[in-house]
C-alpha cells in the first residue's frame, strides 16, 4: 500500500485534476439540480391540472429511468444525427434533469405537510401567488427538506463517478488509469473508496450543521 501511495504521488497532478473534476461536477449538478428542483416544484403546485400532470410525469420519468441510459443516449446516441457534446456538458445536463426530479419530489412531499390555513392566511393578507411561494412555501419546504436535499448532494458526489463511463476524466477514471498502469488494482480501488468516504464525511458534517441551523422551530419535536 505504501509503495502504491508513493506511486500515486508520482501521478499526483493527474489524480488531483480528477479530484477537481469530480468536485466540479458534483458542485455544479448540486446547484443546478436544486434550482431545477425548485422550478419543477413551483410548476407542479402553481398551475392547473394539466401542468400538474406534466410535471408529475417529468418527475416520474426521470426517477424511473436509469441515469446511465440518459447519459449514453446523449453522449453516444445524439452525435448520430446531432451535435457532439463534451462529456462535462452531457453529465451536467443528464444529472441536472435527474437530480431536479428527485429534489422536486422531496419538496412536494414536504409541501404536503404544510398547513393549508397558513397559505390561505397569506393570500388573505394580499400576497400574490408568487409572494406566497417565495415568502411562505419555499422557506418552509426547504427547511423541512434539508435532510433529503443534503442526502441528494451526497448521492451527487458518489454518482458523479458514473460520468467516467462517458469519458469524463473525473477522480475514479484517474484511479482506474493508475490501477491499470501500476497493476495495483486492489490498492487503487481501496484508496478511491477511502477518498470518496472522506469527501462524503465533509458533506455529512456540513449537512448536520445546516439541519441544526435551519430546523423549523417546533417541527422536529412534533414529529
Amino acid at each position, binding site marked *: 500500500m505504501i509503495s502504491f501511495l508513493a506511486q500515486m504521488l508520482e501521478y499526483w497532478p493527474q489524480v488531483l485534476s480528477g479530484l477537481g473534476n469530480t468536485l466540479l461536477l458534483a458542485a455544479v449538478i448540486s446547484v443546478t439540480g436544486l434550482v431545477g428542483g425548485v422550478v419543477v416544484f413551483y410548476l407542479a403546485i402553481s398551475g392547473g391540472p394539466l401542468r400538474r400532470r406534466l410535471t408529475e410525469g417529468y418527475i416520474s420519468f426521470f426517477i424511473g429511468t436509469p441515469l446511465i441510459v440518459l447519459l449514453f443516449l446523449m453522449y453516444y446516441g445524439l452525435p448520430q444525427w446531432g451535435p457532439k457534446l463534451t462529456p462535462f456538458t452531457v453529465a451536467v445536463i443528464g444529472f441536472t434533469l435527474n437530480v431536479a426530479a428527485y429534489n422536486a419530489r422531496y419538496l412536494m412531499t414536504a409541501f404536503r405537510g404544510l398547513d393549508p390555513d397558513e397559505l390561505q*392566511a*397569506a393570500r388573505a393578507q394580499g400576497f400574490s401567488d408568487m409572494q406566497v411561494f417565495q415568502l411562505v412555501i419555499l422557506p418552509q419546504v426547504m427547511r423541512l427538506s434539508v435532510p433529503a436535499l443534503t442526502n441528494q448532494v451526497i448521492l451527487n458526489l458518489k454518482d458523479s463517478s458514473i460520468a467516467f463511463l462517458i469519458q469524463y476524466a473525473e477522480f475514479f477514471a484517474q484511479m482506474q488509469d493508475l490501477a491499470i498502469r501500476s497493476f495495483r488494482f486492489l490498492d487503487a480501488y481501496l484508496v478511491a473508496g477511502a477518498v470518496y468516504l472522506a469527501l462524503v464525511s465533509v458533506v455529512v458534517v456540513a449537512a448536520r450543521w445546516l439541519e441544526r441551523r435551519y430546523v423549523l422551530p417546533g417541527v422536529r419535536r412534533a414529529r
Partner: protein
Amino acid sequence: MTLLSVQDLKLEYDGRTILDGVSFDLAQGELKVIMGPSGSGKSTLLRCLNRLTMPNGGRVVFEGRDVLGPDVDERALRQRIGFVFQNFALYRHLTALQNVTLALRHLRRMPAAEADERALRQLARMDMQAHAHKYPAQLSGGQKQRVAIARALAMDPAVLFFDEPTSALDPLMSREVVNILHQLRDERVSMLCVTHDLYLARAAGGRVMFLDQGRIHAEGEVDELFGPNADPRIRAFFHQELQQAQAAQPISPAQPISPAQPMDGAQPVDPSGPAGSPER
C-alpha cells in the same frame, strides 16, 4: 356610515347551496357577530367578502366600492381587510415579530426598522411584546391568536374578520380573545366575527345574526335572539350549543366576564375593562 354592505349573496358549490341570499350591513366601528351551526356557511360567507371564494350572485360593497366586479384589485382589497383564522395560521418559520412585519415589508415596502417599530407597537397593544422573538411553536393558543390579531391590525385594515377565533382555544384562552374584542370595540375598530361559540357571541356584546342553511334568520341582541320568544330553529341551536358548552367548560354563558381577567398572568388588556366602557 355603512362600511360593508352585503346584498343577496349567493353561492352554490357542487350543486349544493351554501349561501342562499345573505344580506346585512356593517357600520363603521360596529362589531357584528354571525352565529350558526357548523355547515351553515358562516366561514364561507367571510371568504366571499374578500374574494378568497367567488360567490355566484349578489352584491358586496365595501368602502363604497363594488367588491365582486371583474376589475377589482383583489390584493388591494385584501389588504384593507384583516383576517383572523380559527387555527391562528401564523407562519411557523417566522417569529411573532416577523409574522407581523412580513406584510409591512413586502406589501407596504416599509424599511425594516420602521416595520419592526410598527409591529412592536401592535404586539404591545396585544400585550405580546415580551414574546416578539418567539416562534409560533413556542406560544400558547391564546398567545398565537393575539399575534394573529396583531398581524392583521398592523396593516391598518378598515375591518377585521374573525373566523371562529375561539374554537381552537380552551375557555381561559377564549377569554383572552373576548377581552381583545372588547378592547378593539372600545377603540371603534369595525369587526365581523363568525362563531358558533355562544360564550363568545354573548361576551362580545355586538349585534348577532343567526345564519342557518345559507340564510340569515334573525338579527338582534343576543338576549332577544336567544330568548324565550325566539324562532324554534334558533332555540334548538341554542339548546344544543348550551349543552355542549356546559359539558365542555364549567362557565355558564350568562356569567359576566371579569374585565380584569389576567391573561397568562400578564397585565390585563384594559384596566377599565369592557364592563366599564360606555355603551355606544
